[in-house]
């Protein structure tokens, strides 16, 4: 590529950018200056602004298409292939099978397969298609010749963009994803220059208007009914109509023919011959103009409009808006107009930027362009969507360049009050200061930190009041021509709601009975509630500039740090954790903490709920103390009983001793009465002794002094003991005794002394309450689960017990009733001791009784006491180790 064309391109781009930026201002000015004028003027200027913007955009786009095609046409490779093609026979077969055909397709593939094109031609000066992306139209007369004057102009060396025309081939309609006839198609045509500077052929690219030209026109669709469209000199529509559904409905447009070329732009009068609308007919005749009083449009509505003829493309251009809408909702239209103007301007600036940065790599260029345009389009669409917002443009040194009506309304200024002044005017002092920083930073580094981010900040109204806005910044321009466009939305309402929410949350925070605190990463208190302040006996104000760690007692501060550090680093939660806090006055207070990390304005904090648990802990301590005290008291009682027993036995020893001595003397002297009286003293003393012994037994058990002596012993020996007992007992109340020992019950492992005592107590008890009856002791073995039991069952035919008596039978000092004690004697402790011994030996005790039908006690004891088994087991282990 030669440097001349590069220079030309740069010049072109510079020009375009200059025009556009100027236009942005002009558009704004046109519109804004009309803001205060009559409604008519405002409508006119609004439509004018849109029309002019679209017109400029269309023409700029055309220049770029030409520039692109010219670059390709000048490429050496392409010129060489063209020469080869020209040398071939002009037959479809030869041309399409030629090597040159393949080479040219390969070369141009990146272009004609992009989103913006769908084909290319190399056309010989006689109008024959030498090469094409499709075989079907090679060797025949090219379509472009249908357009009067275009091909001739190109052959003279002037590139052209043709206006939309119905396609000769089936093209994909991406709206319905189907190939259709008569799809709109356009060409950009550039001369291919030979060595002697002569035009040897023409290169055309088939442009897809729906991805290039039509989107520009669609930006001119303002409000509900506004549109901007193209037409030819016959008054045929060349772009899409937003009223196609209306036209179809009215029968003007055939339902099956969706192509624009079937719409004749005639005013739809009810009577008379149809005639072109005023805008179309005047434009065709070369008269640009406007009508804001209203004229019949092509879609059954009166419209206001601006029109002109674009010689460069050979088309007419109109921007129209329904009359009713134009005067009904001025505010909305105003915003829509501004949105359209801003979007188109920005779009064009970006196109200009793109071309300024092109490289020699043409295919790359096209690819990049595809990508860039897609991106920009999405971006601009988003801007349009938000066009109801206030828009303020500033220069890179902070001076306001434009200020739209919505901005005027929002800030209370007239446009002329603010344009040219520093944007700080609109900011409260603290933000204005920060803004200076941003501007300086931008100037030094070229980095605009706020671009692309919506942020909430406070703005200053003309009357000095502050209000909340959301600001989105976009940067436009190139080289040293930078501007920032700010889109501003009033969010006072939202902020108010947020404020109410905050107030509600604040109330919860303040009123919470649970202590709450927020600490920052350096451990400083960021916020505390009154409940927390109360826990440590401070005022809320006293927390300012103090550290949480200083409040923790030294012993606990390390634990706390270990808990909090990972959360400050990685987030998450901690607790419950109990630590002591040092109160300003008095004792440390024990608190339970639960908390989690949270982010606030990019900084990590930890929220904690704090609960004073010192009282709860005091209860726990008191409870433990009470338990210990009770246990100690119980031990003291047992000790007391043991001492008591000793103290009682000593005089009792004297009583019994003297009585026996006297009885001996009396016996020697033959005084029989004295002997029997002394015997009563001796019996009573012995009863007292028995009572003391049993009380002591119980106290020994309760004091935990009872140790079992676990050994193997024969059950037969036990039976002998009981048998000897029954000989004495049997004679007293004329009872028969029967003792049975099962054959397999030979030996058990337990405390023989205790087992013996149990049986003596139970048999004595049975004998005590049975007269002229039978008392049976049965000893047997019983296996349940893995444990073998020795079962002792003592059954009598005595007086029995009521249900109430049964319930208390093992309680100390409770015989059935007082009279029983008098009648049957005993201490009332025998069964209590049985119960305690059975428990001590991990056995079970059961009793069945009915008044008058005797009583049955069943004692089940483990055949082998558990402690013996485990002792043996550990011995075994030991032995194994030794071995």
């Amino acid at each position, binding site marked *: 590529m030669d440097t001349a064309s590069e220079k030309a391109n740069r010049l072109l781009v510079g020009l375009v950018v200059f025009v556009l930026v100027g236009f942005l201002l002009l558009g704004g000015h046109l519109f804004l200056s009309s803001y205060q004028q009559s409604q008519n003027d405002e409508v006119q200027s609004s439509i004018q602004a849109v029309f002019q913007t679209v017109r400029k955009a269309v023409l700029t786009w055309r220049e770029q298409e030409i520039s692109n095609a010219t670059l390709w046409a000048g490429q050496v490779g392409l010129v060489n292939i063209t020469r080869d093609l020209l040398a071939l026979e002009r037959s479809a077969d030869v041309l399409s099978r030629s090597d040159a055909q393949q080479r040219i397709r390969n070369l141009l593939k990146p272009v004609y397969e992009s989103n913006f094109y769908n084909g290319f031609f190399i056309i010989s000066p006689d109008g024959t298609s030498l090469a094409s992306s499709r075989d079907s139209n090679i060797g025949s007369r090219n379509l472009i010749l249908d357009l009067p004057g275009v091909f001739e102009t190109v052959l003279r060396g002037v590139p052209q963009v043709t206006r939309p025309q119905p396609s000769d081939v089936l093209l994909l309609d991406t709206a319905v994803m189907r190939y259709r006839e008569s799809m709109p198609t356009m060409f950009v045509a550039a001369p291919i220059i030979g060595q002697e500077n002569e035009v040897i052929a023409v290169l055309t690219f088939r442009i897809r208007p729906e991805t290039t030209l039509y989107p520009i026109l669609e930006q001119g669709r303002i409000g509900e009914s506004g549109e901007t469209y193209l037409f030819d000199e016959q008054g045929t529509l060349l772009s899409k109509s937003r009223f196609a559904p209306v036209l179809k409905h009215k029968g003007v447009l055939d339902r099956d023919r969706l192509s624009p070329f079937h719409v004749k732009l005639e005013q739809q009068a009810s009577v008379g011959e149809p005639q072109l609308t005023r805008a179309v007919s005047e434009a065709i005749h070369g008269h640009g103009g406007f009508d804001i009083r209203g004229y019949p449009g092509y879609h059954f509505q009166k419209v206001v409009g601006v029109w002109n003829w674009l010689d460069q493309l050979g088309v007419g251009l109109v921007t129209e808006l329904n009359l009713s809408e134009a005067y009904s909702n001025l505010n909305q239209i105003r915003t829509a107009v501004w949105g359209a103007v801003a979007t188109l301007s920005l779009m064009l600036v970006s196109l200009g930027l793109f071309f300024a940065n092109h490289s020699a790599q043409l295919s790359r260029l096209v690819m990049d362009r595809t990508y860039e345009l897609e991106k920009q389009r999405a971006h601009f669409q988003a801007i349009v969507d938000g066009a109801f917002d206030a828009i303020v443009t500033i220069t890179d040194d902070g001076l306001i360049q434009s200020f739209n009506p919505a901005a005027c309304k929002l800030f209370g200024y007239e446009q002329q009050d603010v344009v040219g002044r520093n944007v700080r005017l609109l900011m409260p002092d603290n933000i204005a200061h920060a803004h200076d920083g941003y501007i300086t930073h931008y100037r030094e580094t070229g980095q605009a930190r706020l671009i692309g981010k919506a942020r909430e900040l406070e703005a200053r109204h003309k009357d000095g009041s502050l209000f909340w806005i959301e600001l989105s910044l976009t940067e436009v321009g190139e080289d040293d021509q930078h501007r920032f466009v700010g889109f501003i939305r009033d969010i006072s309402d939202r902020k108010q709601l947020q404020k109410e929410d905050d107030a509600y949350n604040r109330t919860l925070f303040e009123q919470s009975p649970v202590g709450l605190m927020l600490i920052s990463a350096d451990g400083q208190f960021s916020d505390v509630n009154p409940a927390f302040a109360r826990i440590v006996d401070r005022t809320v104000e006293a927390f300012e500039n103090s550290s949480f760690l200083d409040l923790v007692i030294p012993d606990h501060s390390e634990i706390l740090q270990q808990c909090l550090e990972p959360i400050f680093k990685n987030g998450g939660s901690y607790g419950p954790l109990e630590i002591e806090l040092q109160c300003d006055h008095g004792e440390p207070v024990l608190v339970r903490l639960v908390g989690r990390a949270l982010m606030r304005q990019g900084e990590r904090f930890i929220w904690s709920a704090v609960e004073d648990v010192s009282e709860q802990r005091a209860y726990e301590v008191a409870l433990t103390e009470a338990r210990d005290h009770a246990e100690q008291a119980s031990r003291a009682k047992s000790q007391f009983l043991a001492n008591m027993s*000793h*103290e009682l*036995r000593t005089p009792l*020893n*004297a009583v019994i*001793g003297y009585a026996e001595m006297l009885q001996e003397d009396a016996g020697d002297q033959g005084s029989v009465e004295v002997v029997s009286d002394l015997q009563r003293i001796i019996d009573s003393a012995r009863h007292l002794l028995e009572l003391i012994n049993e009380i*002591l037994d119980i106290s020994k058990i309760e004091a935990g*002094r009872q140790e079992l002596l676990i050994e193997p012993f024969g059950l037969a020996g036990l039976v002998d003991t009981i048998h000897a007992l029954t000989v004495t007992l049997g004679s007293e109340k004329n009872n028969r005794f029967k003792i049975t020992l099962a054959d397999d019950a030979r030996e058990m492992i337990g405390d023989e002394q205790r087992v013996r005592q149990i049986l003596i107590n139970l048999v004595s008890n049975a004998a005590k309450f049975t007269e002229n009856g039978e008392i049976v002791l049965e000893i047997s073995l019983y296996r349940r689960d893995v444990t073998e039991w020795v079962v002792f069952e003592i059954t009598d035919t005595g007086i029995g017990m009521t249900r109430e008596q049964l319930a208390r039978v093992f309680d100390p000092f409770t015989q059935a009733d007082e009279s029983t004690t008098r009648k049957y004697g005993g201490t009332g402790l025998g069964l209590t001791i049985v119960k305690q011994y059975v428990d001590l030996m991990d056995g079970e005790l059961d009793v069945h009784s009915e008044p008058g039908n005797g009583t049955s006690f069943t004692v089940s004891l483990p055949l082998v006491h558990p402690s013996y088994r485990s002792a043996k087991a550990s011995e075994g282990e030991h032995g194994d180790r030794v071995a």
Partner: protein
Amino acid sequence: MRKILLVEDNEANRDMLSRRLAKRGYQVVMAVDGLEAIKQAVEEGPDLILMDLSLPNVDGFEASQRIRAMASTAHIPVIALSAHVLSFNHQMALDAGCNDYETKPIDLKRLILKMETLLSYGNIEVVSQ
């Protein structure tokens, strides 16, 4: 006549038991506390000692130990008499050198049986020495 040293701090019990033993033909010497018991054991050289365990000054356990530790008295049989019935007291008495243990109130028949056994055993012991 067998000489019995009765160590008992309770006056009534001392009186009662000494009289009953005397009636059965024993010569009874008495001591009211542990220190006196040791002194009497040395001075009187009894054939057998009946030793109460809860005594003032030196208690029965220590007195028994000391009597057992002296060559002149080591051979004298000692029967502990106590109103303490817990088994650990019983064991402590045996550990202190007592030959047997009887709980109060005294079953006199049984006590005399034990005394006679020990007195005859003591003779054999002495003879063998």
